């Protein structure tokens, strides 16, 4: 593929608002997970909750879109000057030439969960203030964002569980290559809700402590929430040396099981190999792997096998979910931003919470932070339904 420029990017998670707190937390090996006190949830687990989401107010004209997911989206868009960068892109290209392609798994479903507690006792109807279209519907996120910027180009919300906001990069790549648009606002937002907390708990996939990816004693995920965005454009002939480029995308399906990965990570392997092929790179060209690394016994085992099959055991890798939690449909976007930060600032983030590496996983899992040159990184995102996506990012010029 022709490399695309991530001209701007930002992320907001339990580590804080915008890039600076993420960068600091990663360098200091700090996490943002804490005991769950969300709503009325009685699951004994840790979550990565973003502080202050409830205080965010949507503009009056967009009030029907008000829900936790869109509040988090707005909070995220307004960090690091990202919204202004989008407006500059619109001024440069036109409102019809900038697409909005965002990922989410549960959108504003919390709004429906809360509305079901307020059903009319006689008729069973939902309360009159409930608005399905603008809150719960999967597309609420991209529709809100498109309206917020007054965009008039193509829009879609990708919802393929935990690969959602990785896949948006593939969709944007194709749309830019087709010449339908000049830029795409990509990324993802997922927010805490009862469906995922009780759902993953029912599958016995939720840890009772802060999650420990690739640990021999790992016992499940910690659910987080995040808003992560990037502006993708064609790269100029001479990008800045520290510019971050999208070099390849790889997508595959397990065709195996709805909620368990292929035991040998076959689909995951295909996604990584596809991304390498599209980027015209060899495994040895990759300096860091941001693992999907959810910390469930089966997910990490399958990914470990897949990474080993493609890269051998000497490519540094880590999961940053020990710090951020598993932000589900936002994870691909958030971890793309983490890879972009690692490339811009030249470091390899260590995984945290992991005490003893699982000796059965034959990969070079980083437990110590490394400040070192990094030219290219790959980010893995896998999800229910056996959906896999790998993204390769690179620095315009090696440091």
């Amino acid at each position: 593929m022709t490399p695309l420029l991530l001209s701007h990017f930002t992320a907001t998670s339990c580590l804080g608002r915008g890039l600076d707190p993420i960068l600091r937390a990663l360098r200091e090996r700090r996490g943002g997970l804490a005991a769950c006190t969300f709503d009325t949830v009685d699951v004994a687990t840790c979550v990565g909750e973003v502080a202050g989401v409830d205080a965010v107010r949507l503009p009056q004209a967009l009030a029907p879109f008000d829900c936790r997911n869109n509040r988090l989206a707005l909070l995220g868009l307004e960090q690091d000057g990202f919204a202004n960068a989008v407006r500059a892109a619109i001024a440069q290209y036109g409102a019809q030439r900038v697409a909005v392609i965002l990922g989410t798994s549960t959108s504003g479903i919390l709004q429906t969960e809360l509305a079901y507690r307020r059903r009319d006792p006689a008729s069973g109807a939902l309360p009159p203030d409930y608005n399905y279209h603008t809150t719960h519907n999967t597309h609420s996120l991209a529709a809100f964002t498109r309206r917020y910027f007054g965009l008039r180009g193509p829009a879609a919300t990708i919802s393929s569980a935990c690969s959602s906001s990785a896949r948006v990069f593939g969709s944007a790549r194709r749309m830019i290559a087709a010449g339908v648009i000049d830029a795409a606002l990509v990324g993802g937002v997922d927010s805490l809700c009862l469906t995922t907390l009780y759902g993953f708990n029912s599958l016995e996939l939720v840890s009772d402590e802060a999650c420990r990816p690739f640990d021999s004693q790992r016992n499940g995920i910690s659910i987080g929430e995040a808003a992560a965005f990037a502006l993708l454009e064609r790269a100029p002939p001479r990008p800045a040396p520290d510019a971050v480029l999208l070099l390849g995308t790889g997508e595959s399906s397990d065709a195996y099981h709805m909620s368990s990965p292929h035991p040998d990570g076959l689909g995951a392997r295909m996604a990584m190999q596809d991304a390498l092929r599209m980027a015209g790179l060899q495994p040895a060209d990759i300096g860091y792997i941001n693992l999907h690394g959810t910390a469930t016994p089966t997910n990490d085992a399958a990914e470990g096998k897949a990474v080993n099959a493609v890269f051998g055991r000497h490519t540094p890798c880590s999961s940053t979910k020990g710090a951020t939690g598993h932000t589900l449909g936002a994870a691909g976007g958030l971890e793309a931003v983490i890879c972009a930060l690692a490339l811009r600032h030249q470091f390899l983030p260590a995984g945290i919470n992991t005490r003893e590496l699982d000796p059965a996983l034959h990969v070079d899992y980083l437990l110590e932070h490394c400040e070192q040159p990094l030219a290219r990184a790959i980010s893995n995102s896998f999800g229910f339904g056996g959906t896999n996506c790998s993204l390769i990012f690179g620095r315009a010029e090696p440091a």
Partner: protein
Amino acid sequence: MIPIALDACIEGIGLLGPGFSSWPHARPILEGKQPYQPQPTVLPTPALLPAAERRRSGAIVRLTLATGLEAVTAAGLDAATLPTVFASSGGDGETCHAICEMLASSDRRISPTRFHNSVHNAAAGYWSIATGAMAASSALSAHDASFGAGLLEAVIQAAVDGTRTLLLACDTRYPQPLHGARPMLDAFGIALVLAPQAGVRSLARISVALSAAGADTLDDPALERLRLGVPAARGLPLLRALSLSQDGPVVLDYLDDTRLAVTVAAC
């Protein structure tokens, strides 16, 4: 840069909806040779799924598998080789309702199967399990614009990546009380096999562009109600043009301020 022509050849069609049991059955109705008689959509049991998955499969899975298989069979292709684009306004409505009802009750222990069926891409996941398709599968929503968004994504994928792509555009109803908040006429699905180049099985070539023109409507009031009553049925004007083997432009609903102009031509 030179924009790539956004076109693809249709090699297979699958259709299921109220009063439509297949594409061959629907064709004379859309041509206007037979009257449209709406009947509740009949969803076949997906024989392709293993017994355990078959039992768990909801309406959206049955609809997706039935329409997808019809299209792929008509195209004479092996489903295992095809990447897919799954477009749906909201995924599995029955599952969503059941989960929200339990979460509002005193016992929040929702079933694990219900939970994994609740993801928007569940039907796409079952499709890949049923057919053994390990290629890429995109799952998207654009509310009422879901058919347009799916068609655009699928045509672009075929044109840019030079690969055959199966579009699966399917919607099913929510039960009450969500049905009141998001009414939908009935289950309706369209599947299209799109190929980058013309071949022996090509039915027509379509090219797609964004447009400000108004969307085409259907003359029959019941068909027009269907078009407006289910997001996937916004693709009906395209199927009507295909049924008539009629060259020319068709304008499909897409986003509130943007439509898709689809030019149909013989291959």
